[in-house]
């Protein structure tokens, strides 16, 4: 008790000030908790909604867990949802609705479907159980129940293809450019550097129209290459790698030249292995950019459903079957899952990597 009293009445200015949990800490933790709730609650809510059965999603059931109303096979009437009827004495009886829902609703017991009696609507509560609606996920993935238009695996393949190929090309050519700008002295080095800075300041959306002309005249409009190639050279990547490669000692290169290694082999055997940390940061950034890319793929790929990326497929899906919220939510979760897993796995690496090197 006395310890509690000292805890409550302690004031600042006493020697143990540094270790104590002051009001500033309280405010800081309160702020952080509030922020994390704002970040996580919508995502978590989407996930919990996506495993609810269709009926619960359509009725906007705001309970956290997936409740499903139990149905029973009624003779001559097919499956009917069951309700719990509580009468005046507090006794509970399982019934199904035999007529339309009114203030006085006609109901009957499943054992005796013909013995219809009326009860007040307020005495009826749905007879529910918790069940995870796996079909929300399986129907679009396996193209069942009229979900033939959602080619999930095509979209996934396209997305993965674009992401992987674009990232590989980005890594290779940006590393080459970074190597040239960091390890060679040549005429026009400053010009090239300034040109690359300039591209950093040209936003992609203001060259949209004429980029469309260029891509179209190259004949890659409407194909995945039209998404991959224009975005392959990134000024951010060149800078990141150049800054990193500047820290590699020149003596290593000189030693290799003594051994008559060609410049390309120096690049491949010395520079690339030594700049792996920067390369992996760029790889992660590139994967995020390409996986989440929306506007440019929308322009290039929209006309051909077989070329859609996952993001486009999901947009079309949400637009086309606007009412099937349970499928949309499930597919949203499927789309955010890979990137979430990558993030959970590499989060420390990603955040420190971007904080120290990445700028865009």
């Amino acid at each position: 008790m006395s310890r509690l009293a000292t805890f409550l009445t302690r004031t600042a200015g006493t020697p143990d000030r540094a270790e104590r949990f002051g009001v500033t800490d309280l405010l800081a933790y309160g702020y952080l908790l509030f922020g994390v709730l704002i970040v996580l609650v919508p995502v978590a809510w989407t996930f919990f909604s996506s495993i609810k059965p269709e009926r619960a999603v359509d009725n906007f059931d705001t309970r956290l867990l997936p409740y499903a109303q139990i149905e029973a096979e009624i003779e001559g009437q097919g499956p009917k949802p069951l309700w719990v009827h509580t009468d005046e004495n507090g006794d509970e009886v399982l019934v199904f609705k035999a007529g339309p829902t009114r203030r006085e609703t006609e109901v009957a017991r499943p054992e005796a479907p013909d013995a219809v009696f009326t009860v007040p609507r307020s005495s009826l509560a749905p007879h529910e159980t918790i069940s995870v609606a796996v079909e929300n996920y399986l129907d679009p993935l396996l193209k069942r129940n009229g979900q033939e238009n959602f080619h999930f695996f095509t979209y996934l393949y396209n997305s993965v293809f674009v992401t992987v190929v674009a990232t590989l090309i980005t890594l290779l050519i940006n590393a080459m450019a970074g190597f040239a700008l960091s390890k060679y002295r040549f005429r026009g080095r400053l010009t090239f550097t300034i040109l690359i800075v300039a591209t950093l300041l040209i936003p992609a959306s203001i060259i949209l129209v004429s980029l469309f002309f260029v891509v179209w005249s190259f004949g890659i409009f409407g194909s995945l290459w039209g998404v991959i190639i224009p975005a392959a050279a990134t000024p951010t990547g060149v800078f990141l790698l150049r800054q990193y490669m500047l820290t590699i000692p020149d003596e290593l290169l000189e030693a290799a030249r003594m051994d008559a290694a060609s410049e390309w082999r120096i690049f491949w055997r010395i520079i690339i292995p030594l700049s792996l940390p920067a390369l992996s940061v760029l790889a992660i950034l590139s994967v995020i950019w390409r996986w989440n890319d929306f506007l440019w793929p929308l322009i290039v790929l929209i006309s051909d459903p077989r070329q859609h990326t996952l993001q486009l497929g999901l947009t079309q899906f949400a637009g086309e079957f606007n009412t099937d919220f349970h499928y949309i939510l499930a597919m949203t979760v499927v789309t955010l899952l890979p990137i979430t897993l990558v993030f959970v796995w590499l989060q420390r690496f990603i955040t420190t990597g971007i904080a120290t090197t990445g700028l865009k």
Partner: protein
Amino acid sequence: MSLAGSLMLGLLLAWGLGGTVWLLTTRRYRVTQVPRFAMDLLGFPVELAQRLFGRGGVPYALLLPNMLIFGLFTFAPMILNFYVSFTGGSSIILFERPWVGLSKYVDIFACESYLVPKTCSNAGYNFFTGLYNTLWFVGIQVPIMCAVALITALVVNRDIKGRGFWRAMFFYPVMLSPVVIANIWNWVLHRKGVLNAGLDEMTGALNALAGLSGFDMVMTVLLAIVLMVVTERALRAGAEPSTAWTALFALILALLTAWANPLSLLDLSGSLWLGLALGAGLVWLVAAGHRSARIAIMVAAALAALMLLSIQFSTVFDMGRYRPNNWLVTPNTGWPFFWLVFVFCWSHMGFYMLILLAGLQAIPRDLYEAAKMDATRPLRAFTRITLPLVMPTLTVVIVLSLIRSFQIFDEVYLLTGGGPGRETYMIVQNIYEVAFTNSQPDYGQAAAGSVLMAVIIAVFTFFQLWLTRRQSEL
């Protein structure tokens, strides 16, 4: 296949076949050295450049692919944009497009009043509506996001437990794609969605609570105790009043002022603002270490006690019936715009927070130690040490987020589609729709819009850099 396409194919063939032949004739490979051969083949142009021009030619060969892509897909379109904006028609073959001079720009600028888009021609109406919405969006969103990112970075930079966890959590939305973000928020903000349901339940609970007998008394006593504790803490902390406790006190004071509504005696509204102003003034007095701070807190406490006695809590907490709001659809409420700003901040804040955090961590610790030795107040340490030293990073963040939010398209297009009406119709959506979704695509018009947008972004960026030129030179 077009001309350029076949050229590319030819180039690739020449690379593969020519490289193979050249490599096999000049070097020897064993069967086990297939990976090495593949690597050499990949860099064959570089090897060739070294053979032909010596080491001096190598950097150019290394830069070639990158600069080729930059040139073809960034610089060429940049220049082509001007050309396209001077041509008309809907042909996608450049040479078949008729030259129309400045008429696309004239279309846009055919306005009676540039500030009222309704008086413009059709093209001008769309362009200026998009432009003004975007300017509003940038003007509101960039300061809010930078402030929130800076505050979050400052909090995360404190000596707190689980820093990596908090940092990662704030960064997580950056990883999500716009489509996913739009679907999530559409679901949350739906008229029957969880936000409306939650607000409904909260109002119901508050109403029920306010309806309880004795609620007034309990609430008054409770707040009185809280007020006493907070005032005592604020005044007792060391020799001078503590800023953090005063902030808490100011918050309570603002709420009390809003509830007691003293301005209603004068038939004026806006007591909340009065309360906020009072609270802010108090915090400033204390944070600046003013001599009269102690007296001001005491006066404010007396004022708060007086107001506390006058408040009828049962009417303050009686919210009435909650009407579900159709957040993204109802026109003339400002909600769609508000949610756009919110969602955009939600999804991008983490990235800027990380950059600012890196800037904060680069500030040497001894500066703060020295300030502590001199008994500097935290606010002064913030304005004299933290802010000037983080200013270069903050400038970068402001410029980047400015460019980024000027280009807002994905979130708007997927959440509101520019609606209701044209309330959230942004400039990139205008460009996109004019060029790609109209039945008669008007590339010239869209290119003219892009050129104008580029000019505006450039002006903004340079103005921003000019304003902060002293800081960014640091």
